[in-house]
Every structure is written in C-alpha cells, then in structure tokens.
C-alpha cells in the first residue's frame, strides 16, 4: 500500500508529457484495441484470463526493458541497421523472460506455448522501439513501454476473462457456480475474433466520447490548436474529431510530437 502511494506521488510529480507518455497506451492508443498491433498472440492466448495476464506481463517486461535499452543506445545505433539491432535487443530480453517463466511458472509456459518466444516478433514491441524509444529520452521511453504494456495486458485480461467466463464458465480458473452455461464457441478461434471485434468497437465508442467531451470542455477553441504539430498535421483543419478516423489522427499527432522530441 505504501509503495503504491509512493508510486502515485511519483506519478503526480511527473511533467505532463511524461504523464501522457504513460496514459496514452492505456485506452487512447491501446496497442491491441486501437492500434490493432500484436493481434496474433491476442487471439491465440486469450482462451483464459490467466493466460492473458501471463502473456501481458511477459510482453510488458520485454517492452519496458527493450525501450530503455534502445533509448539508451539510440545515438549509437546506425540508422541503416537499426531494425536488426532492435531485434537483437528484444530477443535478448525475450530469452530472459522465457527462461524465467519456464523455471518459475511452468503452467503458464505450457499454456502460452510458442507465443512466449514469439514475443520477439510482437509488432507492439518493435513498433514502440521504432516509433518512440529510438527518438525519446530514457524516462519517457520507459513510461511509454509501461503504459503500452499495461494497455496490452489490460486488453488481454479483459478478452481472456470474457472468453473464459462465457466459453468455459470460469474466471481466473474459479468456477462461476454454473450461472453461465459454457458456450464453447467463445474459446474457439471464431469466438476470439468476435470478442476482439466487439472490444474494438466498444473502445472506439469510448474514445469518441472522450474526444467529444474534450472538445466541449475546450473554451470554444479547437482541440488541435493546442497541439504543437498542428501546423504540419494534415488532419488539423478538420473540426469534428469524429469525422476523421480517430486512429489516423492519433497517429499523425503522435508522429509529429515524437519527431519534435527527437533531439
């Protein structure tokens, strides 16, 4: 509890762009539900909530570590070979995670199977390395990795929980007491795609609502006006935030921001 309070105090002390580096991964730029990255492990391992938690935790560890390492090395890595260099760093951390999980959590290792070593090619991790860690300071990169990892883990637990509850009648392995009769299709791939689609729809609705509220809270000024990238942002003149596919706009804004942060 004390540790949590300390963490909260630390978080409150952060400058706002650090805060944003962390929070954007939770919902607004959720890697799975908004950027639609890393769908392969998402669909494959979320037959149970515990698997989602395990996968999310493992990927978060790799993501944070590789973001920090890549951010530290960003001036040393030549531009032309940056992708192989990133992959080597990510692979090193993935190997560490795989060995740790094999040693201490053999059940999770069995459930995740091939998807644990495949964290190496998880496009969330390489995507964050390329789009964020290679252009930003260590602190920002670590927070970005943490936020993205938390968003990934949250989405996986949510999906795993829904699929496990409806498809197997249990949640985190505990039976629900027979309230919901198991509907097997939810643990099959077809049900995975269905739940995935519904969650994407739900998140989009949520973000559209946030955007609308933010626009209304603004004192008549356009949201984009506050953005430093507004002059080069191609979606800036569009007033209604719902009119542009929000994801495109997010990416454009994030891209221009990250470019600015590059020293």
């Amino acid at each position: 509890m004390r540790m949590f309070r300390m963490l909260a105090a630390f978080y409150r002390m952060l400058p706002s762009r650090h805060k944003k580096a962390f929070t954007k991964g939770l919902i607004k730029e959720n890697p799975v539900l908004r950027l639609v990255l890393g769908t392969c492990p998402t669909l494959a391992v979320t037959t149970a909530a515990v698997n989602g938690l395990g996968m999310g935790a493992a990927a978060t560890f790799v993501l944070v570590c590789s973001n920090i390492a890549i951010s530290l090395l960003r001036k040393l890595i030549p531009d032309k070979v940056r992708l192989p260099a990133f992959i080597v760093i990510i692979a090193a951390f993935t190997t560490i995670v795989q060995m740790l999980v094999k040693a201490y959590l053999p059940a999770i290792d069995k459930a995740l199977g091939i998807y644990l070593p495949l964290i190496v090619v998880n496009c969330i991790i390489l995507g964050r390395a390329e789009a964020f860690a290679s252009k930003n300071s260590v602190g920002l990169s670590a927070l970005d990795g943490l936020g993205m990892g938390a968003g990934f883990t949250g989405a996986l637990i949510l999906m795993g929980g829904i699929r496990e509850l409806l498809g197997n009648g249990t949640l985190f392995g505990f039976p629900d007491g027979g309230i919901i009769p198991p509907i097997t299709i939810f643990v099959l791939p077809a049900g995975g795609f269905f739940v995935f689609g519904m969650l994407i729809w739900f998140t989009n609705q949520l973000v559209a609502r946030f955007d609308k509220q933010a626009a209304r809270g603004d004192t008549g000024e356009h949201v984009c006006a506050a953005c430093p990238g507004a002059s080069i942002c191609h979606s800036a003149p569009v007033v209604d935030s719902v009119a542009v596919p929000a994801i495109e706009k997010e990416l454009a804004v994030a891209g221009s921001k990250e470019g600015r942060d590059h020293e």
Partner: protein
Amino acid sequence: MENPLIITSSPHLHCGMTTRGVMLDVLIALSPAAAASILLFGWRSAAVVLVCVASCIAAEYLSRIILKRPQTVGDLSAVVTGVLLAFNLPASVPLWQAAIGGVVAIVVAKQMFGGLGQNFVNPALVGRIVLMASFPEDMNRWVTPLQGASGVDTTTSATPLEVVIQGGEMNYSLQELFVGIRPGSLGETCVLALILGGLYLVIRRVISPTIPLVYIGTVFVMTWLLGQNPFIHILSGGLMLGAIFMATDYTTTPINKTGKIVFAVGCGLLTVLIRVFGSLPEGVSFAIVIMNILVPLIERATRPLPFGEKRRLRNER
C-alpha cells in the same frame, strides 16, 4: 394529389413481386415440412419453431431500432430465417439455445452487415453453426421419430448418415428415408415434404431449379464414384433442405446461370468431402456457408460480357 404528373425514371411497370410476397411463398413452401416435423417428432418441434421465429423477429425489430434504421421486420424475412434455423436443429434442443441461435443469426450474420440483402452468408446456417460449435452435446442428440408427443421418455439414436459413414448397416429403408422416419434435424428428415415445397417455389418462379438439381446431382455422382450408396446420401442428412431452401437464397448465391452451376457443384463437392473424408458426419451447412463466402469471386469470374466485347487477357489492361 398536388402533382398528377409523376415523373420518375424506369422501371415504370412492376411485376408485383415484393420481398414480403417472396418470403410468404417460402413460408408456404416450408409448411409441409413443418407439418411433417410435428407428426414425426411431436409438439416439441412446434415449440422449437415458435421460439426460433419469435427470437428472430424480436432480434430484427430491436436491432433495427438500436441501429436507427428503417424498420424492416414486416418483410417476413426474419420469420423465414427463424423457420429455417429451427428446421436445422434437433427436436430435443433446449429452447433457450434455439433462442440464442435466432439472435446470432439475425444480429451477427444479418443486421451487423446491413440487413436483408447485405448478409454475405445465410443467417440461419450461421445460427446453426454457432450453436453446433457452442453446444455440441445438445446439438447432436437426435430424437428417434414417431414415439408420441411426450418429451420426457424420448429415446435418441444416431442419424442414418452417422451410421453409414462409420461403415455400419442402416436400419432404415429408402422409403422410410423418403418420408422422413429417421432421426435428424426437425425439418430435414421428410424429403417428400421438402420436394413438395421446392416444386411449389419453382412453379411460383421464386427459385430457379438450377442450384438444387446441380447440387443434388453432384452429391449423387460423387458419392457413387466414391463407392457409397448415392441414394442414402441424397435422401439423408440436410441435403434436401439445404439444396432447396438454403442454397437458393437470393443474397448469398450467384446471379447468373453459370455462376449458379459453379456454386452448386462447389456445394456438392464440399458436402461429399466433409461427409466421406471429414470428421463430421454432415457437411451441408458448412459447404453452403463456404460457398456463400466464395460467391463474390464466382460472380467476378462469371460476369457476362457486354454485347460486342471481346474477352481480353488480364495482362492487356
């Protein structure tokens, strides 16, 4: 009448064929099979049909309201979907599962894609497949026909197709198969009633006989070539129901004749492959759904040439 002179573009004459009229014809064509199912499996089958129809209508009505689209529940297409779904279920299916099937068929397969005319697969078949994947035990409990209306002491047995494919000896004669005295889904067993309904639809020009004939013919020839008894194969399983009522759905089948033949041959081949070599005893629903998904490609390949044009090789463009 403010403006007695009405200026519109063609068409100026209407043959009077409406969606509602077509659906009503399909319902009339389905009624002999419905009557047969009540005779064979008792009043329980009527309950299944009613639950499916009710859930389909409710799902259609509510989803149109939620999606803020014009109400289309009056065109009776939801009723047809409900009846077809019920015909694809065993008589002993729990009623709440039948209701779920109706909701999935209408909401997931039809309304999420834009409603009638926009669905890319047959909604009733999607409902059945989802139920089969979700509740395999309940969906494979086949009631033995003609044992009175009581729902308690019903006995169940394997369908003839299951027996034949496992190499066993079938205890039903071909005549019994023809009138439907065998375990199976509600509406699929009575081939006689289904053929009557199909004839009615062909005479009323609601469907063209191309797809049913080619589909059944392909299954006959294929099973014969593979050394099975072709008569058992065409008279059992869901082939008649699928070929006459499901594979002739306007939305999910090709428009022109060549396309229809390709579609029907594909359905027949897949059905036989699943029946003879697959792990499932019956493959009509999967065959039709797979071919439904391929329809856009079939349409593209069989697009008729405008008069006077020559067929060009793709590279020349």
